Every structure is written in C-alpha cells, then in structure tokens.
C-alpha cells in the first residue's frame, strides 16, 4: 500500500517538473509592462470593496457591501438595472464595464486606517483591483485615498463626512460622493433658525477628533451667522461611552440648544443620555430646550430608539425621497434584501456606478482617463437631484437633506422624515478654503 503511494507521488512529481519545464518563465517588472496599475487584460475587471466588517460599524459595512453587490449585478446586466435606468448618462449598457464582466473582492477595514490600508493593498497587489471603494469613517477614507494615489488606482470614497477628505487631504485619484461637515452646517442653520428662532444659545459636545472639529466648526459658523450664540463647546473622547458628565452641566450653562457633534456609537449614547437627562422637557430662557445632531445615520440612529423623535439633523440621502432615482434604488434594493437601503448603501452604490460610467465614457480604465471623465462631470437621476463632481477638489455638490426624527414611525426603518431639501447652491463653497493640494493623477506606471 505504502509502496504504491510512493510511486504515485513520484509520478506526480515528475509530471509537475515537466509542466514547469514547458512553461518558460517570463520575467518582467510589474510596473513597466502595463500602461497603468492592474490594467484589466482578460474578460473581466476586478473592483475592491473595502468596508468595515468587524467593529462597531460592521452593520453599516454590511449594508455597503449589499449595495456593491447590487451594483455589480446591475452593471453585469442582472436584476432590474436599478439606477442605470434613471441615470442621466447612458453610457452603461449592462454588459459589465467596457464589455468586461465586473468581478469584485471584499475586505475588512475594521474602521482602522492600518487594517483598511492592508486590505486595500491586498486587493491591489494580490487581486488586481483597479478601483477601491467603501469605508465608513474619514480616518479610513483619507488613509486609503492616499494609498490609492500612491499605488495608481482610483478611490471612490464611501461614507466619509469630514471636510478633510476633499479638503486638506484631497488626492487626485480620490473622489467623494458623500457630503461633508461644511454642507451639513450650511444646510442645517437656516432650518434651525426657522424652527427655533435666531436668538438661541447653543452648547456643543464635540467628538475629540478631526471630523468632530470640522463639524463643530461648520455648525458653529453657520448658526452664529444666523444670530445664535455659542455658550460652550466641550470635547469628548472617542472612547467615551457614558456621556452623563458632559450632559448634566448643560442645563446650568444657560444654553437652550445642545448640538451633538457625534457619529455612530458616540451619537447613539450621547443622544440617549441627553434625552434621559430630560433636556427636551425643559424650558430654558422661555424656550423649549432642543437637541441637534448635525450628521444623522438612520442605521445608527436606530440604536437610539425613540430618543431621536423630533431631533433635527442632516443626511446625505434617505429612502423616502420621491424622485425617480431614489425610488428606483429603493425598489431594487428593497426587493433584493427586504428592507430599505441606508445612506451609506446609496452612496456606495452610486459611487460604483459613477466609476463604471466614467470608465465607459473615458473608454479606458486608466485612472487618469477616469479621473478626467469624473472631473467636472454633471449628472442627474442618482437620487440627489442634479449633481456636480467638482474638478478642483473631487467633491460632489448636490442637494443636502435636512431631516427630523419621526414622531410616529410606522416601521423600524421609518425613523426620519425629510424636512427640507437644501439646494446645491446653498451648500457650495470655494474649493480653496480647506487648503490641501490635489496633485496630479497617478496611473501607477
């Protein structure tokens, strides 16, 4: 028995050696043979979906991944075509991208910049991804964007709200569809003034890191322009879970509005705590005490339960929008998965389509050609009305939604209602105000 095995192994071995002998080794340097990094040469093209799969944002990441899978299905001609039917550009045919079937790889960012870069690099180096997209925080977005710039692939940012992503840390190979802190502030302030009056004293609790700073700054500037006064701004650690010691002193400060510049778990906890402390039942300066959450995420807001009722905030997109694009996306996503998509899902889906469309229009996967096709690109039918991919900073300009926690939700998804769709013109800013340098696109070769 053992003897037979030995002979068989011997045969296999010689076979393998013969095999290698036949295939003469071809030697070349990776970066000189191709025109650009990971030029797709076969019948398919690989995209890298880099989303948080572990850690506190895992659910958001899962929703992003669902959106990407849906986008791939649509790009390859499956399903109902989703937003491809309403998209103003008709370059996409449902036959993949430039006739190449879309394949994808997935990775886990863990919402840590190191892990996100490791995962993105493996997609680029191992799987030959020609575009990386996804993510659920600005730290990750900035880190991966810088990597893609260096490696010579396109980065289509997922959920990232800090001004930095297309501000001081902008990169020629990176593009952001999601809105940012500045836009939140600009969109919120007039609504807040309308609803709560112009004579208000605001108390800010701010997450103590870059995104928190830019958000506080944006909301402060725009509300102060409306006549509000900022009585205090206190920074809270990212790792804080119980915000009682930050919330309790708010009433003593004479403030009548609390602005929670928090996201994700921080937001859920600080909002829950604020409502617990009965802030919203109080009358201060003869006005009802109010709470504002500049950046809403429906998915995360669910964690705060009934506490979100009546609280204003802004969001990139919401499934209850009634334009054709949004309706088509909700229909498509809802049919496949049984629940409505989140704003993160929307942004990721749109980014995937925008990339594919840009490739088609450019007629090349070369990042420089794609970037050129995206720069200054104006489109419609993707759910936020007319949208511009500004050339100067690769930021999308589109309508911003101001939303409010719904008083009588009919289902677990029905948490927010749209109060106002702030037009693009109101949230547009000069591209140079946040500094940074875009550089020139890097095709990697």
């Amino acid at each position, binding site marked *: 028995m053992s003897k037979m095995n030995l002979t068989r192994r011997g045969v296999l071995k010689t076979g393998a050696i013969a095999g290698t002998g036949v295939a003469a080794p071809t*030697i070349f340097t990776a970066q000189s043979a191709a025109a650009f990094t990971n030029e797709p040469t076969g019948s398919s093209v690989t995209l890298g979906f880099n989303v948080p799969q572990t850690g506190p944002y895992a659910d958001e990441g899962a929703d992003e991944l669902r959106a990407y899978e849906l986008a791939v299905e649509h790009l390859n001609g499956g399903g109902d075509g989703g937003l491809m039917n309403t998209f103003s550009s008709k370059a996409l045919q449902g036959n993949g991208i430039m006739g190449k079937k879309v394949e994808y790889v997935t990775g886990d960012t863990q919402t840590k910049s190191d892990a996100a870069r490791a*995962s993105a690099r493996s997609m680029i180096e191992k799987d030959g991804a020609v575009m990386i997209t996804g993510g659920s925080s600005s730290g990750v977005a900035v880190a991966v964007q810088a990597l893609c710039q260096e490696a010579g692939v396109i980065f289509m940012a997922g959920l990232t709200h800090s001004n930095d992503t297309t501000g001081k840390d902008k990169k020629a190979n990176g593009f952001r569809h999601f809105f940012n802190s500045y836009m939140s502030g600009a969109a919120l302030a007039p609504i807040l003034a309308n609803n709560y009056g112009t004579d208000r004293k605001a108390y800010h609790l701010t997450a103590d890191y870059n995104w928190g700073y830019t958000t506080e700054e944006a909301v402060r500037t725009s509300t102060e322009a409306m006549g509000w006064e900022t009585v205090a701004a206190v920074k809270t650690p990212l790792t804080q879970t119980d915000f009682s010691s930050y919330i309790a002193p708010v009433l003593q400060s004479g403030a009548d509005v609390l602005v929670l510049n928090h996201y994700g778990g921080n937001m859920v906890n600080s909002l829950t705590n604020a409502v617990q402390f009965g802030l919203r039942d109080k009358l201060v300066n003869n006005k009802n005490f109010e709470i504002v959450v500049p950046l809403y995420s429906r998915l995360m807001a669910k964690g705060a339960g009934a506490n979100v009722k009546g609280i204003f905030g802004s969001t990139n997109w919401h499934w209850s929008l009634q334009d054709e694009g949004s309706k088509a996306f909700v229909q498509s996503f809802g049919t496949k998965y049984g629940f409505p998509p989140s704003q993160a899902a929307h942004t990721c889906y749109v980014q995937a389509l925008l990339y594919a469309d840009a490739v088609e229009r450019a007629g090349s996967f070369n990042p420089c050609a794609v970037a050129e096709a995206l720069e200054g690109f104006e489109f419609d039918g993707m759910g936020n009305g007319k949208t511009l991919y500004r050339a100067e900073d690769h930021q999308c300009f589109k309508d911003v939604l101001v939303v409010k926690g719904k008083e009588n939700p009919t289902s677990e998804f029905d948490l927010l209602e749209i109060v106002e769709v702030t037009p693009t013109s109101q949230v547009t800013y000069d591209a140079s105000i946040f500094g940074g340098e875009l550089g020139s696109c890097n095709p990697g070769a």
Partner: protein
Amino acid sequence: MFGLDKKDFRLLLLVAVLVALAPFILNPFPEGSGMAQFNAGYPDLMQRFVIFGIFAIGFNILFGLTGYLSFGHAAFLGVGSYAAIWMMKLLTMNVIPAIIVSVIVAGIFSLAVGWISLRRSGIYFSILTLAFAQMSYSLAYSVLTPITGGETGLQPKINDPRILDGALANGGTPKANLFGLEMGSSFNLDVGAWVFTFNAGYYLAGIVMLLAFYLSIRIFRSPFGMMLRAVKSNQQRLNYTGLNAKPYTLAAFVISGMYAGLAGGLMVAMDTQVGAERMFWTASGEVVLMSILGGVGTLIGPVLGAGAIKYMENILSKINSDILHTWFAFLPDGLEDFVVTLIYPFIGKGWHLTLGLIFMLVVIFLPGGLVEGGQRVARLFGRKKKSTDTPDGKTTPAE
C-alpha cells in the same frame, strides 16, 4: 558561525531561507485557482509578516526573558511610526533616516516609560505600561492632532518641505525609497500558472528582520540574556547575588521598545501612513497574543505567532460568501448551500470568531504555543522509536 552555535546557526539559516523564498512558499497555489485565495505571497502581507515578526521578537526579549508583561508596547511602535513619517515629511523620502530615527525616538520614549513602570512588577507593571500607551493613543487621536494628524493620521504630502529631496515632478506623488529604489517596486516571475512577486520593500524589511532575529539570538545566548531569565526566575536571588536587576530589566525594556520602534519605522517605510489606532490597547494586546500563540520565550515562536495572526486577519477576512459558493459549486445545490451556511460564520466578517477559537484551541491543547505544536509533530515523525525518553520538564498540559 557569526558567533552562534550550530543549532542556532541552523535556525538562523532556516529563517533566512524562509525569508528569501517567501514569495514562493507563500504562493503555493496557481493564480486563478480556487485555492489562490489562500496565497499570502503578495508584498503587503509579506511585509507585514516580517514587520510584526520584528515587533514580536522584540516583545519577546522583554516578556519571554524577564517575564515582565508590557501591555503598552504598541505605543513604541506608534511613536516610531510618527518619528519616521516626520522624517519623510521634513527630510527625505529615503527610508534610512526614517528607520534610524524611529528606533532612536522609540528608544528614548521607552526609556522614560520603562524607568517609571519598572518601579512595579507583575500586574502593577502591566497596568502602568497600559496606562502610558492608552494616554499616548488618546492624546495622539485628539489634542495632539497638529503633530499626529489625529483621526486621519499622517501621510507624505506634495507640499511637505523634504529639504534633502529634489522637487517632485509637477503634482507627483512622494514615494518611499532606498536611494532611489522604490519600496513599492516589484518584480514578477511567471511560472506556468503561478505568479511570484519579489518586492523591494519586502526584501529590505526581510533583511532588517534577519538582523533583528540574529541580534535576538545573540541576546538570548549572552550573559545579559541569562540575567534576564534570572530576573524572571528569581529576582530575590539575583539581588543577593550582587546583580542589580533594575538596569537589566530597563535595558531589556528599552531594547524591546527599540525593536517596536524599528517595526514602526519599517511600517512607514513600506506603507507611508500612520494612524493613532496603531497605539490602541488592542494593538498592544495583539503582540502579547502573538508571543503566547507562538510560544513565549522561544526564539522563533513570536515570529510564527505574528505570522499566524496576520495571515488570519488578511486572508480569512477576505473570503466572502461568493467565493465559498465557487468553492463548493461541485456539490448539489442544497448541500452546497448547507456547507456554505456552515462555514460562512467563520470567514469574512466572522474571521474574529475563528481567531478566538484558535487562541482557545492552541492554549488548551498546545500549552507551549505553536512551537510546541511543531515539536510534537517533529517528535511524531522524527523520533518515533524513542518517544518516551524525554519527558518534557517545563510544560505541563492542563490537568
């Protein structure tokens, strides 16, 4: 050879061969095959293997020899990384100054932390180091944002001064290099269906790791190393033998801090970015787990542990349900779905679960870590005849 005895030299040689041939060894499956998913021979992961290997080797000099369990070693890695990136921003994209400065800065920082923390021993020491590391992390993430970049970290920018470098081509991207040899540049070898990648950065990191490993063998075999083991074994006896334990432990602490700084500097050299979460307590915990998983106090164990954890993090997490379906497509539909459902919780977003289970299984069944596993296998094959002659004195299995 090199002042090592035969056994150690063989080990060093083995590690050198493994490092040199890693592009082949880690890519056993042909490109495009279903198993290619398990290939780890791409630059990023290979670099991470050796860099975390260095980190773990250094940690083991402290923990494995002296028994002092530092729960804040990631802070030195982080500080080294910040030093390196600042060198790249201010001086040059050449990695040499970055790496050297990262080691020096981490050494100074660990000297300060060690000097204070080593006033206590046992868990009190662990908590002191943890506290320093957590403070470093928290401050780097928040109030030190102007120096550390906070949440978004630091990357080389086009408009950094870089006084030693010439101006970049218009709008060009600064890239880490070794006298012009870019760390990212690779050389691909196509052999039949296989593709093997030889990456400049990996080989630089690999050489540094070999040096670090060699140095660690020398330390293990030196009188100094013996004193460190003596500290772990019986500090009282050491004191009454006329030896001052404090400078020995402090030196071990600083050496391992410098190893961490070296790892941090190399990380930046390979991948020009630093984020504060590199210093979070989970990162410190990770190196502890690497050492224990591989085998505390053994030379090669920590490197194996580092490799195992990084492999799972980077390979398992990338397997998604689609890939599973392709693997099991040969099964009948119902069975395919069943098998996929069974495996799915352990891969992709469930890779943490697998990691946790492996921690438990290794520590339950292999009290000496992976190294002991290797020894058992070797015993099984190599010394079948005289399997009962060497009762293992040190390790006792559970119960």
